[in-house]
Structures are given as structure tokens and as C-alpha cells.
């Protein structure tokens, strides 16, 4: 029997490191700009060398983030088209059922636990939240970076609207990461203190049986049929 499965390929692990570092840089240089009238924000901006430098770092990190998102999405779409990737992240009707079953279980009105496949509804929610959020901040960020170009074709009111949307979307992403992602990856009793799988790529067999029973059953089934492509070592 095996002790762990490889859950994330190297490319996915690197993508996580990339998005994580850029997210930190963008929040550290971006949120003080949104709240610049607060004392802490001004202190941070001055500490980083003034608003002109903070803006420069934020824009450079934003362009890198846009490139990373573009690469991720085109690669993902390409892999789905060529059949090298499953559609395991696409939300289905089952996810809504799972969410209701889970909430009932949490509330104590039912003892039935939802059984999850490769990605549970919370993980899909976070992934698609990140993708949609990324598209919004990238598009609005580009509007703010090129206001002269944008207003050649579109109304000027779009600029302040983009500014509000950019800051608020980023604030929401920051809060979701602080509240939800930190809980699920660090503070939840299921993984405390640190779910290392996105860095090592590995998940223990016990956790697979517990957290992704449907995927684990599928892996077992494919191994019995002699499928060598299954990510098991």
C-alpha cells in the first residue's frame, strides 16, 4: 500500500508560490493606497519609500500577476481541450447539494457527511473566486494604468468606477484569504498547523480517505485496472 499520493504537479506548486508572493506584494503596496488617509497606511507608504515608489512596485507586481493569470488560464484551457486535464474544478449541481449537506451536518440537523471528489465545493469556490477576482482586478488595473487609451473609446466615468472596483475587489480578496484561506490551510482543526500539500505536492493516504473519498476510490479502482497514469507512488 502507498502512504501518500501526489496531488499537485510541480507547475501547480510553482503557480501557487507565484500567486502567493505576488498577492502579498500587491496587498502590501495596494491596500495602503486604498486607505491612504489612515495613519497606518501613510506610515506603510512612507516606510516603503513614498507613494511614487509604492505605485511603481504595485504596477510591476500587477503586470506580473496579469501574466501569471494569463499563463494559467491559457494552459488550463489548452489542457482541457487536449484532454490532458479533467474538469474536476468545474462547479456542478453536486457541489450545491454537498454545500447544503455539509451545512446541515455543521448545524447538527443531520449526521450525514458529504463525500467529496478531487475538489470539494469550498475549494472550487475559492479557485473560481480567485479567477473572477483576478480578472476584475487585472481589467480595472489596466483601466487605471492606461486611462488615456481607455477614454478614447469609453466614457470617463469608467475611471473612478474602475478605481472603486479595483480597491474593493482587492479588499474582498484580501479578507477572503485572511479569513477563509488561512483558516482552511492553517487554522482548521483538520489541517492545523499547516497543510503542506500545495508546497510538497503530497497528501497522505489517510487525508485522501477522509477528505477526498470519492477521488481516492477512483484512484484505487484505476490502480486495480492497471492504469499507470494515476498519480500514486
Amino acid at each position, binding site marked *: 500500500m502507498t502512504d501518500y499520493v501526489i496531488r499537485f504537479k510541480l507547475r501547480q506548486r510553482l503557480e501557487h508560490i507565484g500567486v502567493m508572493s505576488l498577492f502579498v506584494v500587491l496587498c502590501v503596496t495596494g491596500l495602503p493606497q486604498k486607505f491612504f488617509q489612515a495613519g497606518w497606511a501613510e506610515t506603510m507608504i*512612507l516606510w516603503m519609500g513614498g507613494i511614487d515608489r509604492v505605485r511603481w512596485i504595485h504596477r510591476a507586481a500587477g503586470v506580473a500577476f496579469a501574466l501569471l493569470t494569463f499563463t494559467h488560464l491559457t494552459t488550463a484551457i489548452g489542457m482541457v481541450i487536449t484532454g490532458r486535464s479533467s474538469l474536476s474544478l468545474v462547479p456542478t449541481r453536486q457541489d450545491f447539494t454537498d454545500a447544503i449537506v455539509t451545512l446541515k451536518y455543521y448545524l447538527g440537523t443531520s449526521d450525514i457527511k458529504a463525500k467529496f471528489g478531487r475538489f470539494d465545493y469550498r475549494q472550487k469556490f475559492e479557485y473560481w473566486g480567485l479567477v473572477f477576482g483576478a480578472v476584475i482586478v487585472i481589467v480595472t488595473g489596466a483601466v487605471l494604468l492606461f486611462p488615456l487609451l481607455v477614454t478614447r473609446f469609453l466614457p470617463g466615468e469608467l475611471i473612478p468606477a474602475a478605481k472603486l472596483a479595483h480597491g474593493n475587489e482587492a479588499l474582498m480578496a484580501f479578507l477572503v484569504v485572511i479569513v477563509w484561506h488561512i483558516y482552511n490551510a492553517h487554522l482548521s482543526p483538520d489541517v492545523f498547523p499547516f497543510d503542506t500539500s500545495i508546497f510538497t505536492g503530497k497528501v497522505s493516504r489517510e487525508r485522501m480517505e477522509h477528505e477526498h473519498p470519492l477521488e481516492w476510490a477512483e484512484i484505487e479502482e484505476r490502480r486495480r485496472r492497471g492504469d499507470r497514469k494515476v498519480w500514486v507512488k
Partner: protein
Amino acid sequence: MTHSFVLSFLLMVGIHQGPARAPGNGQDLDACLACHSDHSLSVTLPDGETRSLFIDRVVFERSVHGGKLGCVDCHSDMTDVPHASRPFKTRREFTVAYYEQCKRCHFANYSKTLDSVHHAALARGDSTAPLCVDCHGSHDITPPNQPRSRISQTCAKCHEGVQGTYAKSVHGKALFEDQNRDVPVCTDCHRAHDVGGPREPGWRLKSPEICANCHTSAPLMKKYGISTNVMSTYLADFHGMTASLHKSQQADGGAVTALCIDCHGVHDITKVGDQASPVMQANLVKVCQRCHAGAPKNFSAAWLSHYEPSWQKAPFVYGVKVFYAVLIPFMIGGLVLQILLHLWRVVVNR
């Protein structure tokens, strides 16, 4: 600074002879006027100028010092009769040497002048730099702000061009045509004794505060139907944010950002409703183009003209604001709730 030291030295040795007299004693006036009421009394200076030494008793007695000061309170070195010869080649040299006489009583205002652009010019050796008496007069001093428009006219003695521009501005017209006492005169922005200007370090970035002095005052602005949000809406926007952070980091020479005066003008500020106003929506893009070369027609609408977004003004911007004001608490609240439920279930299971 060296010049003021030289001046002080001159005063100490040359002028402060005799015992200090208590001001408020005008008894010497008659004694002095025994000679100085003569219209023909004059002195010819080494540069050839003939200076009348006639003093008009009526003018002096009507001045603020009339009945309060005597001649030697200021002319403290003129106690000997006949007066000894003075080393001044020109009338201006005399004025400069006497410049510090006012400080014996007016010390606070005198020390403020040391921080002025005028004193900086004097210290550079420019003897045309204005001294106390150039603005206030000498034997004929009357309150400088009566009427208030007199202040601007006093500055116009030298700053004629600026005064002409100011007189045509919304502030200047109200001052001269309507005798309005609310509008700023020169000294409200540039200060009276510690006179400053755009060459003063940090002046540019401090200038919005000058405008805000009046334009954030609710009782004052209510009289004219002007919004007091002009400062907060400016600060909340990109330019205002840059300006306030540059000011915090004292980056006067940093990246350029638009201040009040860059769009509205300085001495030539016009009423925003005027067809000629540069900040009329129809004219505004030309103002934008001064910095944003090639800005298209739509670009100026990116600035919401000091309005807070609302359903009436900038409904799209306001819609985005409302959308996130609802979505963020809903989203984060929901996630926190699910975390709490999860933790509760974990505790119950144990």
C-alpha cells in the same frame, strides 16, 4: 544674515545713544516742529536728491501714533540740536538704517518679517526690498486694512502686474466692486509680515491648505452656495492623494500632481460657472491636457468635479460602491459563519 547684523550694529552704535524714553510722551513734538513745520526746510543728500524735512502736524496727529509717540521715540539719535551730520549717501540708506526702529514696540511683527521673502531680498543686498515704512508709511501711518482693499493696493505699489490679474479674478472683483470682506486679499494667502511665495520651500504642496482655510468653512461657503466638499473630494482622488503623501514625505520636487491652483488658477481664479472658466466641463479637458498630453475628450469626465458619487451624479460609480458595500459584508460574513459552524461541530463531536 550678515546684512542684518551690520544693520543691528549700526543701530546700536549710531542710533541708541541717550537714555531709553518711555513711549507715550509727545511733548517733544512742539520742540521739533519749531523747525520742521517750515515748508522750505530740506536737506541735500550726497546723491543729489533734495529731501524736504517738513512734517505736517495734522497728518501726524491723525496717524495711529499721533498723541502716543514723540519724534525721538523713533528718531532716537536726533536729540542734539542742531543735528550732527549723518553718514547716509542716499535717502534709501537712511530708511534702511532706520528700519529696525519699529521693532522696539512691534517686536512680534518685526521678527515675522525676518522669515519673509522681502527680508531675504534685503539680506541679499537688495535695498529696494520693502521695509516697514514702505507698506505702512512713516509719519502718516493709518490702519493698513481700512478699507480692506487698501491691502491689495499697498502690494500693488510693487506687484502691479499681479494686482491687475487679481482685480479681474472672482476674488478681486468681489473685493473692489462689491467691497466684499470675505474674499482673500494678498495677505490672506501670502501672509502680511512673514510674506511667502512660490519660491518658499514646500509652498506649492502647502497651497491647498490656503484654499481650504475658506473653502472648507461651512458658514462662509453657505453664503455663496459653494460646496465645502471640495477639499475632501480632491484629497480622496488620485491627485489629492499624491499631493498629501508627497507633503508627508516632504517631496516637493517629486512627481508632479495637480493642486487646486493648477486647474483653477492662482491670481486669475474665475467663478466656476463662468463660460471662460478653465474648469467648466466644456473647457476642462484642455486643463487635463496641460499634464496629460493628448487626453481625449472623454478623459475629463474621469474627474467627478468635486461631487461625491450618488445616483444623481456619477450613478455608475455609485453603483459600484453600493455593490461592494453589500457584497463584502455578505461574503465575509457568510465565510465567518461557516467557519464558526465548523468549529462548533468539531467541539460537539468531541
